[in-house]
């Protein structure tokens, strides 16, 4: 169990100074277009560009937060990496066996070739109520990955499950119970145990705490951090809650309509965002403190652009309060703005944007 109070340890050592760190995952030009069909013969009339050219790398041992509003494609990115969807374009290079080890392009592997690689990739889901089979015991649920991969069986499997239960802070005697006997937070611990039992390298957590109450959310966030240190895990943490993402992430990527608009170290991004959309997102967060403890709130006009028919130029320009004529015509590419900072905005160097008040 993670301690209730903070031990005096440093935050994850800086991303690149870590001798152990190397790009575990490199995503280049990743795209996923879902066809929209209509008419008698289901002719494909257009595409929803759910993910439309995403590039990032994940260093071994770090947590990358992926934020954005619903429909921006953040969950699709997670599912593409898991190869629950086949990408339309792009490659996903994954090195689970260390820097010198074999590299797999997850985007092109077929199902058979994927199987051994998949044990290194696991996912934690949002809703602890629907992601556990109600007819299976905890032993079956947590032990299933081991059984499926033929890694252990019988009492050996049971021992591993008990060990996992202890690790995530559940009592071993719960092993024969069914999911309905557990609260939301406990179920999420079960989901985490199931994800970690194969000893994965990369864990994709898709909104793992957004269905939980605040007090339970804090327990699960602490648990995820504790497990990361214990098991040397790398997280892709997908969420919409900017406070949660700041807390857990080393670096943060902001997505808008299928593209990354900004990618930076968490502290930098929150202190001084470079993209107007990041600024608006940060200003929309309500801080639980005495009133007026935050800067002016930017209320965006209109709604998120339609990914099947996005606006011309920069997708954000119809809602951007700094938009100029160039923004309507030219699509900005994600470019390096400073060390470890990437932004997709024509005017990132000129704008002086407000961050979240850091004290």
């Amino acid at each position: 169990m993670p301690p209730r109070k903070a031990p005096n340890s440093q935050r994850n050592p800086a991303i690149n100074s870590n001798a152990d760190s190397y790009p575990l995952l490199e995503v280049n030009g990743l795209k996923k277009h879902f066809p929209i069909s209509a008419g008698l013969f289901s002719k494909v009339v257009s595409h929803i560009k759910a993910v439309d050219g995403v590039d990032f790398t994940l260093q071994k041992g770090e947590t990358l937060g992926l934020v954005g509003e619903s429909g921006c494609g953040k969950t699709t990115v997670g599912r593409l990496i898991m190869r629950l969807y086949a990408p339309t374009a792009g490659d996903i290079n994954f090195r689970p066996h260390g820097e010198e080890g074999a590299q797999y392009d997850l985007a092109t592997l077929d199902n058979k070739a994927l199987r051994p690689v998949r044990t290194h990739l696991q996912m934690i889901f949002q809703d602890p109520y629907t992601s556990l089979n109600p007819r299976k015991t905890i032993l079956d649920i947590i032990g299933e990955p081991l059984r499926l991969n033929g890694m252990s069986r019988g009492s050996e499997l049971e021992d591993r499950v008990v060990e996992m239960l202890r690790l995530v802070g559940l009592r071993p005697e719960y092993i024969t119970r069914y999911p309905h006997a557990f609260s939301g937070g406990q179920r999420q611990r079960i989901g985490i145990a199931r994800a970690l039992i194969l000893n994965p390298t990369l864990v994709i957590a898709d909104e793992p705490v957004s269905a939980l109450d605040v007090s339970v959310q804090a327990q699960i966030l602490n648990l995820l951090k504790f497990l990361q240190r214990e098991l040397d895990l790398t997280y892709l943490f997908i969420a919409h809650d900017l406070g949660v993402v700041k807390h857990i992430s080393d670096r943060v990527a902001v997505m808008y309509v299928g593209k990354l608009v900004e990618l930076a170290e968490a502290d930098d991004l929150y202190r001084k965002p470079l993209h107007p959309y990041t600024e608006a997102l940060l200003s929309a967060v309500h801080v639980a403190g005495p009133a007026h403890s935050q800067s002016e709130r930017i209320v965006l006009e209109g709604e998120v652009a339609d990914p099947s028919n996005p606006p011309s130029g920069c997708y954000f320009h119809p809602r951007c309060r700094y938009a100029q004529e160039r923004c309507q015509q030219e699509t900005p590419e994600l470019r390096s703005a400073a060390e470890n900072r990437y932004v997709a905005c024509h005017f990132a160097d000129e704008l002086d944007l407000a961050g979240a008040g850091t004290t």
Partner: protein
Amino acid sequence: MTVQPNDSLLEVKDLQTHFFMAEGVAKAVDSTTFSIGRGKVLGVVGESGCGKSVTARSIMRMVRPPGHTVDGEILYSRADETGQTTSVDLLQLPATGAEMRSIRGGEISMIFQEPRASLSPVHRVGDQITENILLHQPVTPSEAELIAIDMLQQVHIPLAEQRMGAFAHQLSGGMCQRVMIAMALSCHPNLLIADEPTTALDVTTEAQILELMQGLQAELDMAIMFITHDLGVVADMADEVAVMYLGKIVERGAAADIFRDPKHPYTIALLESLPRMDQKRDWLQTIRGVVPDPYSTLNGCPFHPRCADSMPGVCDEIVPQPISLEDGREVRCLLYTEHATQESPQLAEESSHQ
């Protein structure tokens, strides 16, 4: 900041709404007392299952069996025919009677968490709004339609006239919530009960809806009971805050005071457990254990098994009653009574925190 009794719009006294289930009696709302002043915003916060929604439904008299409001008073001040303000106890009115029906939706209206689920999927949104107007106001159908279009414009729905003919599935979540707000406000209620109105929405849409609600509240001089689990939203919206735990209000006071200096250990712990953008902490403070199931019969303070400052022999035996502190604060905690000083004097100091 406390509301004087004479300008309070709604006074809830010792409200008890229980659910009679096969597993036992769940005391969803257990002797809850609060009041809302005219034109004020009361924020009700708490985790799921704390009884905040049932409190709202009890006021609207919309609790369905097996739930029953077994005791208490809900005094609502309304103007009678002669213009005199009289106070009616909503619990004494038949829930489906003419008077309650004219209050519900007319003078007290409610917006719900899931906007799409609370609109009819088979009726045009315009018809749903006009239906409410026709029920509560002496107008003709064509006048009602004009009022409805005006309301849609007030909640910033573009092309309001065309949107009158839209169905819920043709609108986005934010748009549906605007329609709900337009419907709730179409009869100029004195009190709007908003039950997690922005929880299902994205942050940027949430900011739009909250700004809209604040604007309309000031314009129409309406009181709002704002129910949410989001402490950040409450800090921004509310004049007064009530924190609920297991059917009881454990702390109540002016929003600014509660966020600056929380008194109840539960409020303190809730605020500490939030990851914050303006602070850097390695580990979050957590509250041990989980919310007990509603059928459990706990002795003493309902929070004592999870409380970091629990006093053995005191908190597990004595049920704390609301205690008035300075600045109009009310807190249900034995740390602020003589029990604390008798048992261990340092505890009260520790809990007052920072």
